[in-house]
């Protein structure tokens, strides 16, 4: 089947097979059941389309359902209503083409750096011998080549988080889900990690969904910023960040950058004004 025919068929059955729309979220709702009380609504209504290779940041106030959204995408939580598609297939449970990075590094303290990165390979029952070279490449990419036999407690917070990123990439997932990955780091390390992540993303060309509290971090990293409302979460605004790449820290002081952060911040203050 040629490409044109395939696209026509895809359009006919309502599935987008072009490079757009790797993840399709429509009418997503999530309510947590609470015993003897009304269910707590975490996500009211989120619709979102994420393209292949795109870096999307999600910002919003605490408890707006950002983490819930990622957990649903990772197949760790069941949605209450709506549709979540990854490559046209509904996400019903955990799937192997997703890499997860948590707020803390979540490394296993009894494993060396190398063995920690190998964990997904073991769990997915892949052949470890075929992944040793890949792990070394990843270690080089995250700048930890000399640390493969070290244990987590011998690494700094930033280094641990880089190991976690390498681990999330080892099984070559199509999507990287990052839940406030640098939230626990100090400001200096955080800026450094933002630069590193931009580089890693450029090299690996993964689709990234990046949840953060920090508006500048979101603007700095993302192609698009999804602004979520307070709980129950809904999309307030989608901001396309049209700043040239690679971006550097000096850019954060420019007027163009400031306009984006200003615009996003205004969404929150405007909302608060209504309340």
């Amino acid at each position: 089947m040629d490409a044109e025919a395939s696209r026509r068929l895809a359009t006919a059955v309502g599935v987008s097979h072009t490079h757009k729309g790797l993840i399709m979220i429509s009418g997503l709702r999530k309510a947590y059941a609470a015993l003897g009380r009304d269910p707590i609504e975490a996500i009211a209504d989120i619709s979102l389309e994420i393209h292949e290779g795109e870096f999307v940041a999600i910002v919003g106030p605490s408890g707006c359902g950002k983490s819930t959204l990622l957990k649903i995408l990772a197949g760790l939580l069941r949605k209450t209503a709506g549709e979540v598609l990854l490559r046209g297939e509904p996400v019903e449970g955990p799937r192997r083409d997703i890499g997860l990075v948590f707020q803390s590094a979540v490394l296993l303290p009894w494993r060396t750096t190398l063995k920690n990165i190998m964990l997904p390979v073991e769990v997915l029952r892949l052949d470890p011998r075929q992944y040793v070279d890949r792990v070394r490449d990843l270690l080089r990419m995250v700048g930890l080549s000399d640390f493969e036999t070290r244990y987590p407690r011998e690494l700094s917070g930033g280094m641990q988080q880089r190991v976690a990123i390498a681990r999330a990439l080892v099984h070559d997932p199509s999507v990287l889900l990052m839940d406030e990955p640098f939230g626990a780091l100090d400001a200096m390390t955080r800026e450094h990690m933002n630069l590193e992540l931009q580089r890693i993303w450029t090299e690996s060309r993964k689709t990234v969904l990046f949840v953060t509290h920090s508006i500048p971090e979101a603007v700095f990293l993302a192609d698009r910023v999804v602004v979520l409302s307070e709980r129950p979460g809904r999309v307030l605004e989608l901001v396309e960040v049209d700043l040239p790449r690679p971006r550097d820290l000096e850019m954060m002081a420019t007027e163009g950058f400031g306009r984006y952060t200003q615009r996003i911040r205004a969404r929150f203050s405007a909302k608060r004004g209504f309340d």
Partner: protein
Amino acid sequence: MSSGGRRRRLGELLRAKFHLVLIVLIFVAFVGGWELGLYLLSIPEYLIPTPRQIVVALVRGFSRGVYWWNTLVTTTEAFTGFLIGSVTGLVLGALLAQFRILELVLYPYLVAFQTLPKIALAPLLILWFGFGVSSKIAIAAMVAFFPVLVNVFVGLQSTDRDQIDLVRSLSGTRWQTFVKIQFPSSLPYLFAGLDVALVFSILGAIVGEFIGATHGLGALIMQMNLSLDIAGVFSVLVILAVMGVGAHLGMQAIQKRVTFWAKTETFTSL
């Protein structure tokens, strides 16, 4: 190396290991004070023997082989009981932590059994298992069982939620989660339980021997007590103390090797 350098090294070593020097000094002071106290207060030897008499009893007992044999009997009983009790505790603790229904159903029974002073069951076990080693093994196993069960259960329950989610997000099985995450992270708890269980199992074996036995250090204590060989009783107590300390140190050494990654050592009171 110059003698000055060597002297400095010795000085550093002394400062670093100063507590060891204190431990020895306290022992010497204790033994000296003991001798002196007995002399000054003129306490008769058939109530409290002097340290010298205890040493004499120890040497005599070991050279005649009596102490070797009985130590071996008690050690075997305690260790076999420890193995049986802790393996059972480990398996049951893991099952309880894995299957919520088991926890809900068995919990009340376990609490009831746990609050029971298990040593009180020793006479029954002697009745059921006889005067030989098997009854002592049974008592040792029974007292070793609970500390391991409770610690394994708590250890498995306290696994980091994110670590479990990590394996789950990769479509990992329950068995993979157990083997790769839960069991290793429960090891510091397991060792805390094993440490207590090992000391308890020695206690269990001794109590069993008190109640009815012809061999073992507990039986020896009873015989010596009846024949008013108080120095002998004290000398057996010294053996028991050394056994207990040895068991604890051995377990700690193994724990340090296995759970080298654990941040804080889990200290347990004996």
